[in-house]
């Protein structure tokens, strides 16, 4: 019997190694796998590359992972926000590498990885500082930028419902990067609010089929804590 549920966040993260590239879902605290991120900050890991739209606020969550010195590099679209003090400090001191990627390019680079495509051309960023040094090429009279796939060793995602095969649904804007990241990593770990019996989820409405998910941990943690607007 396939049963992807594990008993806790420590078991969920078992085998994650220093130096790994970790994709972390969520957008503005919604759909963010908070319990897995907390576990990440407590795990004995170093030199992580973290891919996440935002770069943490306050002293918890991703900010705590960085404060613990576990992150070598952040790849994100919007690190700056009212409470992003940890990132700002580390960045100013040159203690963290920061790769800013347009949000859609970031999503598409992971989508390419999920589909086995090593690279694609996109109009986004052409002629800007974020495309500096990148190859460009003309197709049908318009110039595009070559972007590379971005694959994770690990993806941490937050689901609304999950069954033992790892089928996932999300809730409203909690969907965001989660389905894309779930498909783009070697090891996909989902934190779920609710547990569904196998067969209870409508096969037409499953957003992430279980084939893309390796482990599931049940964390009924309640509503996302939005705090201040973060964008």
């Amino acid at each position, binding site marked *: 019997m396939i049963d992807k549920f594990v008993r806790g966040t420590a078991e969920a993260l078992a085998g994650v190694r220093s130096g790994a590239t970790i994709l972390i879902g969520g*957008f503005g605290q*919604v759909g963010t796998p908070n319990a897995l991120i907390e576990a990440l900050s407590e795990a004995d890991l170093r030199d992580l590359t973290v891919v996440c739209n935002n770069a943490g606020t306050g002293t918890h969550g991703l900010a705590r992972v960085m404060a613990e010195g576990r992150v070598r590099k952040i790849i994100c*679209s919007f690190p700056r926000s009212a409470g992003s003090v940890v990132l700002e400090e580390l960045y100013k001191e040159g203690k963290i590498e920061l790769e800013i990627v347009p949000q*859609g390019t970031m999503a598409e680079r992971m989508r390419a990885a999920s589909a086995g495509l090593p690279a694609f051309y996109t*109009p*986004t960023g052409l002629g*800007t500082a974020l495309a500096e040094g990148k190859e460009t090429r003309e197709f049908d009279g318009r110039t595009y930028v070559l972007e590379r796939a971005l694959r994770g060793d690990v993806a941490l995602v937050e689901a609304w419902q999950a069954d033992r095969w790892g089928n996932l649904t999300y809730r*409203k804007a909690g*969907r965001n990067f989660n389905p894309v990241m779930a498909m783009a990593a070697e090891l996909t770990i989902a934190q779920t609010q609710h547990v569904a019996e196998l067969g209870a989820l409508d096969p037409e409405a499953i957003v992430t089929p279980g084939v893309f998910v390796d482990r599931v941990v049940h964390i009924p943690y309640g509503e996302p*804590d939005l705090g201040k607007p973060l964008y």
Partner: protein
Amino acid sequence: MDAVVEPKPLNRTQMAARVAADIPEGWIVNLGIGIPTLVADHVPEDREVIFHSENGVIGVGPAPAEDARDPWLINAGKQHVTLRTGGAYVHHADSFALIRGGHLDLCVLGAFEVAENGDIANWSTGANEKAPAVGGAMDLAAGARRLWVVMEHTTKDGRPRLVRRCSYPLTALGAVKRIYTNLAVIDVEPRGFVVREMIPGLTLEALQARSEARLHLPA
């Protein structure tokens, strides 16, 4: 004899309302942070315009009452929103496929500067003290069928934002089609800035004095 009236610049609400007046029913529209976000409030409810938010919300509705907030439903500006009847959720890759694939009829963004060739600078001041942040601005600017900018005509200290070439880091090349400022509505055409509309009492000369690039009149 007419009385000489001092031209009264539009305030933020009036600028948003002016943009809203030009959005027809049925358009798919993405609104940036700031004044652009206010545009939605000025589209009458019976005119069905579908607002899209980068985080995968299609059919964004008005802000909820404070006691009716759904913590799972925010827009790209991380504000609480509602979903309009008929709306749907997609993931981030599909959300930006919508943007980049030519499915967005309109994007309205704020900007630091717009150049007469349509270049836009709105994501970075170029100052290096803080971590830069781009969000979806470059995807929206490069991807939308139409990019309109809404911004004050000049900076707080009076420097023009309608320029010959952008001095701030670029967001996209040649992307802006129209600019709504507190003083005028300006199209960006092959020959440069073309003034479509001015606030009452303003002369083209006065507007030109507040603009770096040359302003044209419609042909």
